[in-house]
């Protein structure tokens, strides 16, 4: 039944074209190779495709930047999947699917900042020097929840934020929890996670959705597939497989 839903609605008949980032980051896509189906978003993508009636070999991947994804006009993908947060403002320009993941936000910092006395309290966080990737929704959370004393510095991508942390230009950066876990463990020397803002305690939780061209007829098919995956518990299983349980990270008070 779902297979019929997508008929004549995809970019290329019989094929589902999915976009992700360049590069795509761990743990969302392992080894920058979404075709393997390894990594949370890659696995979710193939699960959704399956529900919509596409075999694994009927899925093609393309790469886009954030700007290319929101650029007006016809897209070169059916949907785009790279941790796009759903916001009402963005929703006016593009279409989002139902959320496939609700993320906690986490504070990435370094051991030396922790040793200098930073703690997981809003009071303590306010005094830090903050940075973030300019195109993420970390920025509104930073400004609305933490309200730091000095203006945050903003960067193009994760790599530049990490460079700034390592150069000591910023104390801390706000990421979604899975990304922050990966960065603190692997990329940032002496990296540490200071605390997290759990999604269930937030009034405006950070929810990831698939991004589509405004008015894309495929949306209902995608939504149907996602709600089916959610209800059946398949989505939770994929999450448990690829995204580590972040039990050790204290909740920010």
């Amino acid at each position, binding site marked *: 039944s779902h297979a019929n839903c997508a008929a004549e609605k995809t970019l290329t008949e019989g094929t589902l074209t999915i976009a992700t980032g360049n590069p795509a980051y761990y743990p969302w896509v392992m080894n920058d190779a979404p075709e393997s189906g390894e990594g949370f978003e890659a696995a979710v993508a193939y699960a959704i495709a399956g529900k919509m009636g596409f075999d694994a070999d009927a899925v093609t991947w393309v790469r886009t930047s954030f700007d290319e994804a929101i650029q*007006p*006009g016809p897209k070169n993908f059916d949907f785009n999947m790279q941790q796009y947060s759903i916001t009402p403002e963005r929703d006016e*320009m593009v279409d989002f699917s139902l959320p496939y993941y609700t993320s906690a936000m986490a504070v990435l910092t370094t051991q030396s900042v922790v040793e200098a006395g930073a703690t997981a309290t809003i009071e303590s966080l306010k005094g830090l020097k903050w940075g973030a990737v300019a195109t*993420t929704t970390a920025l509104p959370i930073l400004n609305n929840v933490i309200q730091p004393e000095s*203006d945050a510095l903003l960067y*193009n991508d994760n790599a530049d934020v990490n460079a700034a942390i390592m150069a*000591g*230009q910023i104390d801390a950066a706000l990421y979604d929890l899975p990304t922050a876990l990966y960065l603190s463990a692997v990329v940032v020397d002496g990296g540490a996670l200071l605390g997290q803002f759990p999604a269930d305690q937030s009034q405006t939780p950070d929810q990831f959705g698939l991004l589509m061209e405004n008015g894309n007829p495929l949306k209902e098919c995608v939504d149907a597939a996602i709600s089916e995956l959610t209800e059946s518990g398949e989505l939770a299983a994929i999450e448990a497989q690829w995204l580590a349980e972040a039990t050790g990270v204290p909740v920010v008070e």
Partner: protein
Amino acid sequence: MSDTAQQTGLAGASPAKPTRREIYEASVRRRSNRIALFSTLSVIVAIVLLIPLAPGWEAVQRSFFNGRVFAATFPGLAEAFLLNVMIFAWSAPLIALTGLAIALCRDARAPALFPLRMFGVAYTDIFRGLPVVLVIYIVGFGIPGLGLPRPWNSPYIWGTLALVLVYSAYVAEVIRSGIDSIHQSQRSAAASLGLSDGDTMRFVVLPQAIRNVVPANMNLFIALQKDVALLSFIGPVEIFRQAGVYKSLYANFTPYVGAALIFLALTVPATRYADYLMNKQNKQRS
């Protein structure tokens, strides 16, 4: 004078009566005004009517010329532009001074100053040869990594340094060309009065050289004002970055158009003025 007027009168063409060329030219002028008006209008009408017919015009309009987004973001952009102005304001004098110092290095003649001269050459060659954005990345993330404590590792300091390095190389070249353009006889005259080399440079050569290169330097400083936007890549939230933030917030490119308008409001008059100075100078020269 009255003599002339009389002769003119005698020859039959009083100033009041239009000559046949005047009559012809008046008719030409009327016709060409009509043509100019008509052709201008038709071009404008074509633009206004045809562009909206393009298939994606509505989408582009919503993404690029979105009134609601414009109104919501413009004040924030203008505020962010203050940071551009401030970075410009503290960079410009540093650039002028550094550029002057480098120009003097390259002009140093004593053999003991050979390393200074070589330094000047290497400096201008290297920093004129690199893309600004590359220098900003390398200096802005590299030097702070030397382990400087806050506030000495601020991206404002090192981003500014990157701009100073690049632009002072250009300014140095321009000043040096100004120094070279001062005729040897001016140095001779100063030397013959018993002035030292330093005094000759300071009181005789430099004032003239710098006056000669004002227009060229003005163009450089306009370019600087635009390149301040590149500092955003290492952190500072100036207008270009702010536009990017709004872009991702609204998933809309209108903020970039707003930023463009703000830039134009500043750079167009400045460029015009620099062109005017440049033209004046070229005229004087020939």
